């Protein structure tokens, strides 16, 4: 097929979009089949509708909304012919959403599948007219041939196509010819989000259901000694009180022991909880408080860890000029999506059904099988729309609790966590402590020795992922800063003694590695009286551009340089600062192959910090849907600011101190700075953006604070030092 045929630049008139098909002569032979599915993603119907089956879970990022653009593009059809069907079959291979790879994966994996489907229908048109398929022209869903007056559609070719073999390969539409990719389109759920009709997990209902709320043991691994439910059972609407044993600490979806109140409405269940009298055996983890954790981290930093990255042998001390050392630390953070964890579960002896806002469906299925002993066919899992996740809904603890309550009560049960449960009994972004030491000579760093101690998610939940005792999830993000420093040695220690449930959290260790590494570059730059942006660029020119991270992963230094150069231009980096004002820069590369740089503009007057504006430059390969890419960039920045300004999860006698958004504050409308985003054009395939802009936000802001007032922030959140 001549790809030139697809180089149509005509924009779609809204009229033709509405009608779907242009008013011109159509070949009219009715297909004898209703629909035809040439591959796992597409079903062509005889009424012209093309059903697109995707399996990404929607939690605000809108991946499915953008996959639709890929299908319309490759099939050369109007966008409204594509009817999206999101199916998340938990039992079809691995189904889950995460790692910012949704769109990147479909961009690489699905477009060739769409293209072969298009080629199949082109071949069918060739066969129908007995002409060479190479002469077929396809535009806006119509197949034509120079010698024919009529045109045929996908729908009218169903029968012919269904008898042909699907080609193994087909050319992809060239980027220059894109009509949909690269242009902004809305979320498919937008209308339902505007009038409150989009059903989330919390909105699910079924006949005869009860509402549940669980009072859980406040200390990890504590046990239930005894409880008295008399008063709770007298509360109007309360139907039952059921104890839950909790899982072992090692369980993948760890949850603590608890006592559940089941009632005819949510409020009665929550009120009933206050009337429970419970005695816990709080156990050993009562020792966990902030001092204990910090002492443990410090002791580990003083000891010997495992070296996970090292370049040539250490230079002798005489080679070194000045030496700089510092300690950084980062707190525990909670995910706190706006929709609290919940699940509606209906258990019978014949099987079970769950309506749950979770995005690791395969994990949920495995967990349900383990708990019930049911086979795949006896388990039905419905994925609802998710009111945010930020990593929390990778786990399915709340779904299993709901299921156990349904089994024990013999009724469908909707479990809903309160906000206080969310804050106090989460699985948290792990805290960490970091020791850095660098030598400098002639204005350039000659060495960087780093020690990092952190709780390890893998050590807690998937120890088989540790390789020679190394948690690469903690380590790898330190390798993604390609500055030329002749000697580096990175060491890690896993704080396995601290039994606080740890979990992936929008960017996880990339956030903290970014904070530490990009702050340190700033410290080194200032110690040599060099402009921090110029200092970075000077360290990015020495060697070859392609840098191996680990395994297949490669970073392109020229793109890292590119985002830094562009952020300098966009932010007017060299503009004079006014009194009390400061600018800070930071950049990052991520495992989902995107690059970003941020400049923050702040002012510090007295002790009062104001963040005025953040500039962000992104190189994320082909931008599929700029509207949603920008939304993710805005979201990442707000997420990081929310964490770094005032939020931290702290512990007293093994219990989380914070309760809700009052003492675990999230950024508010008036605190949100202006954000200006520039997406760089790219010839690379689409890469991830969901966990990108948060990474450089931390150090960009703290570096700006240093620039404004000379205060070096090495510990978060900021409200320990400044009024924010």
């Amino acid at each position: 097929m001549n790809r030139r045929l697809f180089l149509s630049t005509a924009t779609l008139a809204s009229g033709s979009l509405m009608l779907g098909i242009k008013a011109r002569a159509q070949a009219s032979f009715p297909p004898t089949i209703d629909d035809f599915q040439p591959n796992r993603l597409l079903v062509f119907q005889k009424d012209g509708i093309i059903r697109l089956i995707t399996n990404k879970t929607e939690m605000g990022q809108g991946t499915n909304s953008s996959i639709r653009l890929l299908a319309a593009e490759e099939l050369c059809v109007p966008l409204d012919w594509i009817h999206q069907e999101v199916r998340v079959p938990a039992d079809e291979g691995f189904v889950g959403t995460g790692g910012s790879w949704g769109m990147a994966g479909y961009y690489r994996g699905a477009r060739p599948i769409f293209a072969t489907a298009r080629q199949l229908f082109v071949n069918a048109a060739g066969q129908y007219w007995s002409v060479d398929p190479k002469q077929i022209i396809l535009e806006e869903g119509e197949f034509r041939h120079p010698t024919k007056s009529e045109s045929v559609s996908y729908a009218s070719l169903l029968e012919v196509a269904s008898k042909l073999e699907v080609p193994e390969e087909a050319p992809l539409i060239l980027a220059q010819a894109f009509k949909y990719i690269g242009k902004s389109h809305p979320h498919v759920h937008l209308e339902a989000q505007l009038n409150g009709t989009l059903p989330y997990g919390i909105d699910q209902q079924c006949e005869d259901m009860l509402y549940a709320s669980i009072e859980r043991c406040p200390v990890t691994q504590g046990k239930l000694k005894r409880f008295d439910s008399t008063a709770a059972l007298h509360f109007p609407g309360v139907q039952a009180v059921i104890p839950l044993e909790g899982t072992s600490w090692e369980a993948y979806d760890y949850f603590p022991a608890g006592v559940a109140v089941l009632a005819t409405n949510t409020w009665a269940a929550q009120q009933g909880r206050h009337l429970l009298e419970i005695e816990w055996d709080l156990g050993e983890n009562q020792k966990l408080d902030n001092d204990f954790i910090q002492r443990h981290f410090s002791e580990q930093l003083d000891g010997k860890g495992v070296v996970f990255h090292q370049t040539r042998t250490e230079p002798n001390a005489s080679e070194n000029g000045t030496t700089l050392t510092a300690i950084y630390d980062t707190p525990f953070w909670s995910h706190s999506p706006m929709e609290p964890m919940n699940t509606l579960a209906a258990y019978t002896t014949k099987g079970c059904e769950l309506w749950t806002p979770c995005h690791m469906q395969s994990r949920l299925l495995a967990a349900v099988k383990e708990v019930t002993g049911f086979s795949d066919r006896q388990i039905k899992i419905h994925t609802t729309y998710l009111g945010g996740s930020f990593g929390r809904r990778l786990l399915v603890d709340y779904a299993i609790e709901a299921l156990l309550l349904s089994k024990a009560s013999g009724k469908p049960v909707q479990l809903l966590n309160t906000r206080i449960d969310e804050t106090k009994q989460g699985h948290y972004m792990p805290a960490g402590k970091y020791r850095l030491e660098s030598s400098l000579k002639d204005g350039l760093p000659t060495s960087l020795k780093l020690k990092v101690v952190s709780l390890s998610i893998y050590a807690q939940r998937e120890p088989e992922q540790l390789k020679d005792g190394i948690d690469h999830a903690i380590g790898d993000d330190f390798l993604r800063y390609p500055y030329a420093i002749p000697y580096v040695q990175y060491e890690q220690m896993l704080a396995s003694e601290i039994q606080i449930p740890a979990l992936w959290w929008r960017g996880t260790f990339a956030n903290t590695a970014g904070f530490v590494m990009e702050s340190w570059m700033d410290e080194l730059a200032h110690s040599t009286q060099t402009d921090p942006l110029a200092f970075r660029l000077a360290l990015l020119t020495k060697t070859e551009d392609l840098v191996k991270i680990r395994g297949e992963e490669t970073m392109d230094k020229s793109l890292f340089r590119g985002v830094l150069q562009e952020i300098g231009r966009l932010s007017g980096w060299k503009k004079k600062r006014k009194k009390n004002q400061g600018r800070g820069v930071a950049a990052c590369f991520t495992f989902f192959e995107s690059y970003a740089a941020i400049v923050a503009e702040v002012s510090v007057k007295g002790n009062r910090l104001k963040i005025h504006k953040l500039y962000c430059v992104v190189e994320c390969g082909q931008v599929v849907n700029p509207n949603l890419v920008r939304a993710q960039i805005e979201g990442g920045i707000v997420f990081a600011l929310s964490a770094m300004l005032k939020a931290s999860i702290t512990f007293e006698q093994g219990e989380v101190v914070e309760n809700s958004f009052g003492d675990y504050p999230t950024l508010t409308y008036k605190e949100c700075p202006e954000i200006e985003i520039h997406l760089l054009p790219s010839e690379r395939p689409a890469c991830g953006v969901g966990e990108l802009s948060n990474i450089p936000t931390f150090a960009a802001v703290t570096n700006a604070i240093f620039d404004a007032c000379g205060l070096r922030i090495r510990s978060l959140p900021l409200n320990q030092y400044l009024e924010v």
Partner: protein
Amino acid sequence: MPSYSLSINGQMHTVEAPGEMPLLWVLRDLLDMKGTKYGCGLGICGSCMIMVEGKAKTACLLPVQAVGKQAITTIEGLSGNNDHPIQQAWRTAHVPQCGYCQSGQIMRAAALLQEEPNPSPEQIEAAMSQVLCRCGTYPRIKEAIQSAIQLSKKP
């Protein structure tokens, strides 16, 4: 169990509930109006923002016995056709991400413009800072409010 007659979105509804039960749960669990969301139950996050006699209130802190004859408006009753100026502006600016807080954001913004068609930046900040969003839609809310103010001015 006491019985309450409530005027919600221009219609009368009768419910039997304990007097202390917050209107949020009356709406959601007794009247099956799920558009108003639970976020914190403490009046901090604003996900459950509704209008009581045109004024923004968090439904999670409003006991049903305190409602009396006051007219309640929820997201379901804001407009017949998703065409309230706030909804139009929200659509144009592509505000929602996960959307969970957006019923509250939209109701807060609608109440603001109803009370003050030409709000100052400080009034906008004071009102919209009552509704939290974890996805980071604030920059787009800011843009949308400005266009809603313009839309509302049109005859």
